C-alpha cells in the first residue's frame, strides 16, 4: 500500500523525523484557510502516487491566502499521468542548500533491510545509479542486530554526506529504521533529504510503501487505504480480497485472464500475447479458491468493457477443479457473460470432477494453455 506524500510525512513527523510545516487540503477553500492561518511563502504540491508531478505542473508556489487560490484551483482535479490529484499539500517553503537521498527498503537478495544513501539527492536514484554508481552507498542491516549508530556513520562516510550534518543524518536514519519496522514498510524514501541554508536536515518529500500483509498488525494505517487512486475495479477487487490488476498499455487489450497462482496467470498473459492478443488484467484466484471466489473474479474481470473474451486457466494443486467449475457455473448463471466468449482450461487436482461439472453446463475445457490462449484471442477478434 503506497501512501501519499502527506501521509508519509505524518508518519515521519510522529517518528521524530523533521518535515516542513504543512497541511493537506481537498478544496480551494481549505487551502485559503490554511494560508490564512499560516501566511508564509509556501509550496502547493499535488498529492499523487505517480512520479514526475513537478514536470506535469503539479507543484506551484504561493505566499498568502489570496495567492493560493490559483495554484490550488489548477492542481486540484489535475490529471497527472492518469491519476487525479484529489488533495494538495501546502507546505512552508524551505531554503535548500543541498539535496541528499536516503531510503530503506527490503532487500530480497540479502533478506535484510537495505539502507541506500547518496549525496546526490533530488533526482531519481536509478538515474544516479546509472550515471554515477560510486555516489551511492548501500548497507544491508543485520535484522538480528538491528540499527546501531555506526551504521549511519558508515553510510554517511561512504555516501559523502557533508560532515557537518552527519550527526543529524545518523539520528534521522535511526528513526527511519525504527519506523520501517513499526509500520511494516516495504520502502521508506526521503528524496530529497534537504540540507537547509542554516544547516538543518529536513525531509522534503516522503515516499512510503507499506506491506499489505503487514497491515494485520497495523489496522490503524488501513484507514488511509481509501485515499489511494487505484482503478475502480482494483478497489472493488481489494475489498473482496482478490488479487487483481487492471492492465493498461497500447489500447489493444482484449482478453480477460483468470488463473490460479501468480506465475500461471503471468504465463497465461504471456501466452495470450504470443497468440496475438493482449490481457486486460492480471487476476489470480490464489491457492485453494472456493466457488464464490471464482464467481467474484469472473464478475470483476468481465465488468471491464474491453474484455472481448475470457480465458480461465486453472492448474489445480491446492485449488480443486470441481470448486472452480461450480463457481464458474454460478457466475454464468447469475451474470450476463455468455459462455461462447469463455475459454476454460482445467487440469490438476479434481480435474475430472471439474470437467464433468462444466460439460453438464455445455462447456468443453481445452487441453493446454497455448491452445486456450489461441482460442480466446480468436474469439476476442471475432
Amino acid at each position, binding site marked *: 500500500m503506497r501512501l501519499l506524500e502527506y501521509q508519509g510525512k505524518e508518519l515521519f513527523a510522529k517518528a521524530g523525523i523533521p518535515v516542513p510545516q504543512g497541511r493537506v487540503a481537498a478544496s480551494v477553500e481549505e487551502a485559503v484557510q490554511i494560508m490564512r492561518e499560516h501566511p508564509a511563502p509556501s509550496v502547493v504540491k499535488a498529492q499523487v502516487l505517480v512520479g514526475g508531478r513537478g514536470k506535469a505542473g503539479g507543484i506551484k508556489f504561493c505566499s498568502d491566502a489570496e495567492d493560493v487560490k490559483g495554484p490550488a484551483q489548477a492542481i486540484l482535479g489535475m490529471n497527472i499521468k492518469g491519476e487525479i490529484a484529489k488533495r494538495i499539500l501546502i507546505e512552508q517553503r524551505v531554503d535548500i542548500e543541498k539535496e541528499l537521498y536516503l531510503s530503506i527498503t*527490503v532487500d*530480497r*537478495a540479502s*533478506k*535484510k*533491510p537495505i539502507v541506500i544513501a547518496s549525496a546526490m539527492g533530488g533526482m*531519481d536514484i*536509478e538515474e544516479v545509479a*546509472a550515471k554515477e554508481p560510486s555516489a551511492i552507498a548501500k548497507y544491508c542491516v*543485520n*535484522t*538480528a542486530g538491528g540499527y546501531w549508530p555506526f551504521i549511519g556513520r558508515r553510510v554517511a562516510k561512504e555516501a559523502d554526506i557533508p560532515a557537518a550534518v552527519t550527526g543529524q543524518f545518523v539520528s534521522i536514519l535511526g528513526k527511519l529504521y525504527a519506523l520501517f*519496522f513499526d509500520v*511494516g514498510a*516495504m520502502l521508506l524514501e526521503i528524496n530529497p533529504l534537504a540540507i537547509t541554508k542554516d544547516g538543518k536536515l529536513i525531509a522534503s518529500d516522503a515516499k512510503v510503501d507499506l*506491506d*499489505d*500483509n*503487514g497491515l*494485520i*498488525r497495523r489496522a490503524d494505517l488501513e484507514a488511509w487505504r481509501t485515499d489511494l487512486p487505484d482503478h475502480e475495479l482494483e478497489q472493488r477487487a481489494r475489498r473482496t480480497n482478490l*488479487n487483481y*490488476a487492471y*492492465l*493498461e*498499455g497500447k489500447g489493444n487489450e482484449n482478453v480477460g485472464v483468470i*488463473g*490460479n*497462482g*501468480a*506465475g*500461471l*496467470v*503471468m*504465463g497465461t*498473459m*504471456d*501466452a*495470450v*500475447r*504470443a497468440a496475438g492478443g*493482449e*490481457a486486460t488484467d*492480471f487476476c*489470480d484466484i*490464489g*491457492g*485453494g479458491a472456493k466457488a464464490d471466489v471464482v464467481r467474484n473474479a469472473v464478475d470483476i474481470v468481465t465488468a471491464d468493457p474491453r474484455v472481448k473474451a475470457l480465458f480461465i486457466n*486453472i*492448474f*489445480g*494443486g*491446492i*485449488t480443486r477443479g470441481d470448486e472452480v467449475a461450480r463457481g464458474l457455473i454460478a457466475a454464468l448463471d447469475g451474470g450476463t457473460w455468455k459462455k461462447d466468449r469463455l475459454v476454460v482450461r482445467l*487440469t*490438476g*487436482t479434481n480435474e475430472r470432477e471439474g470437467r464433468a461439472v462444466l460439460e453438464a453446463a455445455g462447456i468443453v475445457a481445452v487441453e*493446454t*494453455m*497455448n491452445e486456450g490462449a489461441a482460442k480466446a484471442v480468436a474469439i476476442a477478434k471475432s
Partner: protein
Amino acid sequence: MSIYLDRNSIVLVQGITGREGLYNANRMRAYGTRIAGGVTPGKGGQTIEDFPVFDTVSEAVARTSATVSIIFVPPPFAADAVMEAADAGIKLIACITEGIPVHDMLRAVAAIPADVRLIGPNCPGLVTPGQSLVGIMPGHVFSAGNVGLVSRSGTLTYEIVDQLTRAGIGQSTCVGIGGDPIIGTVFTDCLRAFQEDPDTHAVVIVGEIGGTDEEDAASMIARREFTKPAVAFIGGRSAPEGKRMGHAGAIVSGSSGTAQAKVQAFERVKVPVADSPATIPELVRSVMREPARK
C-alpha cells in the same frame, strides 16, 4: 538420490486440524509421504483421521523423530510456526502460507539457525517424485527421473512439470521456492544442492519478473559453481512496469526486475530460455545431449 527430501523423511503438518492442513495431510499420505502427525496448539492428545496431534512441535519431534515440517497456519501466526519448527530441531520447513507480513519473515529468516532449510513461504512446497511430496502440488503430474526443477511460481510449475512428464522426462526433485519478497531458499541454494546430487543431470529454472534471483543464478553459473545443463523460463514478459503481479515479489520497478534483463542474464551464460512452457521439454533434451559447459 534427490535434494532435501526423500522416502525416509518423516514429516509433521503444522496446522493439521485446519481445512487445508488436513486435506493436504491426507493427499501427502496418499502420495506416500511419511506423515508422522500434526501440531495444533491446544488440540494436543487428539487424533484426527489417524494422525496424532500435538500441542507443540518440540513435543511432536520428541515423540516422532520428525525432521521435516510443512506449515498450513494462518498468516498472522505462520512466522511463529516457522520459528517453532526451527527451534524444535526441524531441519526442513516448507511454509505454504500466503500473506505472511514481510517483516515477520525478515525477523524469522534472521533468527533461523544456518542448518535449517526453509522453503517458502507462499510456496507450493517440494516433491521428490515417487518418494515424498511435501506441499500442495498435484502429485500425479510428477514422475521420477534426473531433471531437477526450481521455480518461483506454483501453478506454473505444475504446468511445466506436466509438460516434462508427458514428454517422458522425469524429475529428481522439484522445489517451489515461493513468490514472497523474503523467502528462505533461493535459486542459488537449490542449484548448489542440485550440483551435489549425482542423480540430477540437468535443471529447469522457472523464474519470473521482479528481484534479481535469476541474475544471481546466472552469476553462479558464470562462476562455474553450477555446471550441469540448465534451461530457464521467465514468466511475466507481458507484464507492465510498476504493476504488482499478485504477490509483492513480482513487480518490475524501473529498469530492475524486467523479464528482458533476466532472459539476457541466462543467455549470456549459455542457458537457453524457453518462449513457452510447451517448448521446455525439447530444450531440456537438447542441453542434455550437448557436452557439459566448462
